């Protein structure tokens, strides 16, 4: 059999080795407008979802935190203040354009001292074992080709007792909400993407990748399989988004 291994890119099947490149194209093309779109898309609610993520991180002064797929650094900025001068936050992303926008924005906000930026793939994290007290991946896991590989890589670099938080679009808990949300993301999103970023395709991809992402229970199972314990999730805004938590034993 010489069949090529494929994976999904939104609703399309693409060869595994192509997905990363395609995802990169999407984020290169949206990097500059990413924050504006993020606000428009979610009506600003993404800030609240991120806020709850911070609360659940139990971060405290002096800790070392990894914000992988950190993009423009929303979580990083807040973590940086919490861990203070004795702590450290690593803002990591696979995409150089996103990382650059992130770094500039942190500087604009007067955040520099305890933040480091690293270009890194969530599947192959370039850090020693047992490095971090906490790892967050916000709206990033759905873009990763091999999610199991990424979860295992995150487990490896966490300290024992450290926690992983996965913030991601998930499955709305009511049929009604799902319906409304479908209309919104498949019709309105690409349209707004076209208007604001002149890039309907990227936002169509975003909408599709949301729908292909594992639902709450599936992701929880994947985290347990990867070796995390005490796995749990919190639905937010009716399950449009869920925050999963797991601890490294």
């Amino acid at each position: 059999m010489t069949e090529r291994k494929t994976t999904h890119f939104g609703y399309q099947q693409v060869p595994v080795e192509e997905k990363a490149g395609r995802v990169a194209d999407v984020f290169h093309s949206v990097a500059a407008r990413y924050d504006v779109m993020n606000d428009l898309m979610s009506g600003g609610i993404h800030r609240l979802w991120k806020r709850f993520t911070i609360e659940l991180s139990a971060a405290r002064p002096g800790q070392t935190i990894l914000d992988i797929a950190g993009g423009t650094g929303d979580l990083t900025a807040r973590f940086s203040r919490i861990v203070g001068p004795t702590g450290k936050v690593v803002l990591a992303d696979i995409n150089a354009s996103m990382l650059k926008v992130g770094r500039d924005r942190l500087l604009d906000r007067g955040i520099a001292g305890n933040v480091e930026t690293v270009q890194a793939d969530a599947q192959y994290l370039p850090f020693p074992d047992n490095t971090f007290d906490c790892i967050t991946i916000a709206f990033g896991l759905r873009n990763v080709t091999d999610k199991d590989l990424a979860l295992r890589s995150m487990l490896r670099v966490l300290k024992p007792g450290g926690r992983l938080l996965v913030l991601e679009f998930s499955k709305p808990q009511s049929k009604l909400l799902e319906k409304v949300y479908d209309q919104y993301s498949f019709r309105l999103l690409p349209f707004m993407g076209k208007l604001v970023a002149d890039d309907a395709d990227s936002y169509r991809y975003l909408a599709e990748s949301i729908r292909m992402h594992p639902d709450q229970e599936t992701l929880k199972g994947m985290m347990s399989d990867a070796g995390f314990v005490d796995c749990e999730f919190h639905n937010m805004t009716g399950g449009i988004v869920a925050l999963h938590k797991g601890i490294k034993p």
Partner: protein
Amino acid sequence: MSDPTFRAGFDATLETAINTALRYDPGSRARLSKLAGKVLGVNLTAPAINLFLVIDDEDDEGGYVEVHSRWSGEVTTELSGSALAFLQLLRNRDATPARLGVTVRGSSALLAELQSILRDLDVDWEEPLAKLIGDAPAHQLGTGIRMAASWLKDALGSAPKAGAEAVSEEWRMTPPQAQFEAFAEDVAGFAQGVDRLEARIEILRRRLDGEEK
């Protein structure tokens, strides 16, 4: 547990209200920056809410306050009492925790200093949100925050009249179950109608496509 988005909305709004007021008051910001690193824990008994005011400072801009619903670091001073008692503390110059039945654990120096800074600040505590929605850039205040804001405003607005129990009732924010379900059914019915319409259009479209060939 209710949707965490609401609580996050409350925290975000309170935080913005305080820091917006601080922005126009460099004197207070300077005083506040001396308290950087200190944390005030507040346990409201009615409605039952824990919150933490974490004081920090930005280089050359002075102090600001972060609001958290959980805090894993050290807490400098911890207070507990009803929301009404706290409003009194923030409003009246000679209100003291003891007189209002607010218990204090830890350093009372932080409390005294913070009380005097916050009291002098022009924050309309009872309606932090309504006020804020008008001034803040639209992209900062999406619908989510707006929702949480008006909900909170209702909850707080009725506090003095209806008493703390009523507030804690409202706090649960549950629309009457039956009413909500009836509404949901209506909308679901409508959605099915749309589905059927879409299916019809699809059949028509195929037929047209077929005819073209």
